[in-house]
């Protein structure tokens, strides 16, 4: 199934899905959303792309291999546990910093966000790996 309309839509939708997935990921700390859903949405963009073109094209578009996404995700999740150790708190304690950014207001950054970003990348990588493998069968 190669439809020009679907291909055009997939190519245009991909950046939109990625931005939306990042938004959903960021609002996840206090509102519905989070790394898991964000990762699923990011993966959905690439799966749609792979449906419109094929998996090789989609992998090219992804630039990094899905495995590296998983590795990066696990690493981020692990790194997020380290600041608590340097702060002398028990393992896994959430450490926060607030940044004041002109025009945007206050930006709260912390290790839970970093951990969630790890989840985001891991879910993205895992789902893309599974679906691409199934599609290639």
């Amino acid at each position, binding site marked *: 199934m190669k439809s020009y309309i679907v291909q055009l839509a997939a190519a245009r939708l991909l950046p939109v899905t990625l931005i939306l997935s990042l938004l959903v990921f960021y609002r996840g700390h206090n509102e519905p959303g989070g790394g898991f859903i964000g990762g699923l949405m990011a993966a959905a963009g690439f799966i749609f792309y792979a449906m419109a073109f094929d998996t090789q094209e989609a992998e090219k578009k992804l630039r990094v291999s899905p*495995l590296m996404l998983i590795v990066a995700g696990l690493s981020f999740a692990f790194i997020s546990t380290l600041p608590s150790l340097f702060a002398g708190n*028990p*393992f896994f304690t*959430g450490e926060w910093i607030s940044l004041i950014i002109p025009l945007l207001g206050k930006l709260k950054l912390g290790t839970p966000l970093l951990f969630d970003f790890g989840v985001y990348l891991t879910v993205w990588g895992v789902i893309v790996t599974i679906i691409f493998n199934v599609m290639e069968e």
Partner: protein
Amino acid sequence: MILPALPILIPLITIIFLLFNFQRREWQPWIGLTGALLQLALAIFLAVQVKTQGILVLHTGNWEAPFGITLVIDAFSSIMLVLAGIIAVSVSIYSIDAIDRQRQSFFFFPMVQGLMMGVNGAFVTGDIFNLYVWFEVMLTASFVLITLGGEKKQLNGAIKYVSINLVASLFFLAGIGLLYGKTGTLNMADLALKLSLADNNVLMNTSAVLFFVAFSIKAAVFPFFFWLPASYHTPPVAITALFAGLLTKVGVYSMIRFYTLFFVQDKLFWHPLFLWIGGLTMVIGVLTAASQYDIRKILSFHIISQIGYMIMGLGIFTVAGIAGAIFFMAHNIIAKTNTFLVAGLINRVTGSYDLKQIGGLYKIRPWLSILFIIPAFGLAGIPPLSGFFGKLILISAGFNAGEYVISFVALAVGLFTLFSMVKIWNEAFWKPRPEGVPPYEGENENLPVSMVIPVVFLGLITLTMGFAVKPILEIAMNAAGQLLDPKIYIQAVLGS
């Protein structure tokens, strides 16, 4: 304070390294082995820490005990961690040559580390829902390992394995849900405290039974054992050895933890039940093993039979009984894994696991037969090997507690175990090679050193456990004393 989290973190970091260097095939076994060695070193260090400083507790995320997830390492956990580390090291060394390239390049080593992460997590957690999560981590990794390679018979075994284990998880989760609904807590120490104060413990029986069924399935206890012999002989022997050593024992570990820490009210119901179940598990496992001719099937049925001894120790419920169960578990994890690894060596020489096809190994491989004798006769309980003392402690504990029937059953089962092991010995090593069987492919080849080292290593541990019974029994007694006095655990976690 990060120590109690390290048994989980080290496998995680190893997985990251393994996946990062995924293209470098030749590095994979060595990274996996390094991770396993670190785990073993850490486990020994933790055991010393627990011995000198008492129970190690970590409230993750700075959330105090009943609210957050608590990681707890007491003497029992630390013993299990050391055993898990020993098995991880042995299997990692063994798989360098025993697992084919195809499987190695399909995430074999990351999955072994994933399994270790789940097993270690189950041993250190102090929270029942977290325990469920670690069970799932362990099972997911084991699902991949058991199907890895995708041979037809593997998938056949895996379907049984996966479906029954998912049912067990469902029971486990239902039990957790009910218990949480009734007590409002998931922390093990808090549960123990609440249940010891509550006067309507009858309400807890539904959860207790659900947990019992879930752990019985995972530990392959009568009448829930049938999935084990149906699936364990299908994957490559290194994977079976890993499963045989650890997976069922995590079920037994959880059962001992739950039924010593908080389901202790209905002694009159549970302890006779444990004795019955333990006895039946022993007898049926050992009798079905006697009719098998595939080495791996014989050994699989023996896993079941030996689990019965551990349940018996729990049913006796004295310090000596629980200590016997712990000692026996330690002996069994080492010896059982070792017999599977030796079965892999036999297969390497003869190309078969079928006793009817094998014979005359003593003539061509005398050293291999010695390597087989140590774990096999250890399992059968021949002095001075570890199994003899394991059974001795359990049976004498049984007599002292006045449980004569189960003690005699345990004695008789020991005899049948000996029969099975002698059968493998006679068929594979002693009898002349069957007529009409062509010369073995691997007859003139040397066995890979990496496959012999772990067998020797585990054999030496079996011998050491036999010769140094007293200090090891003291460690087990100490752990059992801690288990039978839940106040120590509760105080360590909740404070005051």
